[in-house]
């Protein structure tokens, strides 16, 4: 029964795109289609002068539609907060349907890893600074070429993940963040973004109107300063959120080489 239903659904789903969505979208690559003319032309012709950012995508993302990005960052913070809160309480061990077995007695002692051809610690110490420098490059260079706050934050988060995951608990960490601290940092990162909006309002402008930043800068400088400020907020928030979600999920995972104490409280 279930299989028949599944096949019927598959057929319907294959038929929908052929009939329903036939010929309702404009031809791809047509320079005169509606999305390529109305607002797009204005952005291409004016965004570089108005936002002082040669990368038009960053100009739109951080300046014209900066308010969207503020809440995109909030969504990231919210995801971290949600993951931490959901995983902050465990179900009562007696009320579980399948009580997890204690694997300690069954597991043979593996001892030290057998593969010793590559010294992983050296590789890590080589990689991490490079990744961080690259993240800084992506952050500062975001308006000129590709990249921006989000990518920089994600690369920083990845550096942390590599640091934590390859040799867990054996080496002194690059920077240790538990999930509570990481969450606070994420909140502060998004707060920097919101603060930029508040600063422009205290300067007498509308929200996120970078011309009115109260630093006494010229038009081009103030836009660059505003974009850098919000990108800083995005970088911090994204980095902290990636670390938060990782920590929240990793708190529940039992690794093969964990110390015994951590398994028993699970």
């Amino acid at each position, binding site marked *: 029964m279930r299989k028949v239903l599944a096949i019927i659904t598959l057929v319907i789903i294959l038929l929908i795109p052929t009939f329903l969505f036939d010929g309702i979208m404009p031809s*791809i*690559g047509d320079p005169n289609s509606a999305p390529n003319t109305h607002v797009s032309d204005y952005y291409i012709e004016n965004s570089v002068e108005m936002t002082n950012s040669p*990368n038009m*995508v*960053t100009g739109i993302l951080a300046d014209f539609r900066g308010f969207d990005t503020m809440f995109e960052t909030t969504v990231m913070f919210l995801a971290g907060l949600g993951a931490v809160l959901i995983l902050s309480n465990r179900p009562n061990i007696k009320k579980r349907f399948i009580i997890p077995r204690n694997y300690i007695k069954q597991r043979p002692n593996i001892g030290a890893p057998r593969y010793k051809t590559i010294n992983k610690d050296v590789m890590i110490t080589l990689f991490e600074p490079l990744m961080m420098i690259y993240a800084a490059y992506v952050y500062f260079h975001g308006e000129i070429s*590709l*990249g*921006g706050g*989000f*990518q920089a934050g*994600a*690369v920083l*988060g*990845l550096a942390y*993940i590599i640091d934590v*995951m390859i040799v867990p608990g054996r080496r002194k960490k690059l920077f240790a963040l538990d999930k509570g601290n990481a969450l606070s940092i994420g909140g502060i990162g998004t707060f920097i973004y919101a603060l930029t909006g508040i600063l422009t309002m205290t300067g007498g402008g509308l929200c996120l109107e970078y011309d009115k930043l109260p630093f006494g800068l010229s038009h081009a400088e103030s836009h660059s300063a505003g974009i850098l400020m919000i990108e800083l907020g995005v970088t911090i928030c994204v980095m902290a959120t*990636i670390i938060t*979600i*990782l920590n929240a*999920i*990793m708190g*529940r*995972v*039992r*690794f093969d080489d964990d110390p015994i104490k951590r398994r028993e409280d699970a």
Partner: protein
Amino acid sequence: MPSLFLEAVLLLILIGITLTIIFGKDLLTVTIVYCSFSFVTMFLYIVMGAPDVAFTEAVIGVVSTIYFIMTLKTIRRHTK
């Protein structure tokens, strides 16, 4: 525009990957195949002329694959 052929080919690869994911039984395989899905997606973004989006997708693909594999450690690997 020759890039349309490339787009079509990449989309066909993506559809194949999606079918593998839907009918796969081993969750670890599914996750790794999903990682390759986001890799092909990144190429498709570049072909479509959106390098910014491709950069983001490259980073996100790695991060979400790591999350999926971490979650997989708590979850039984085989599906029904």
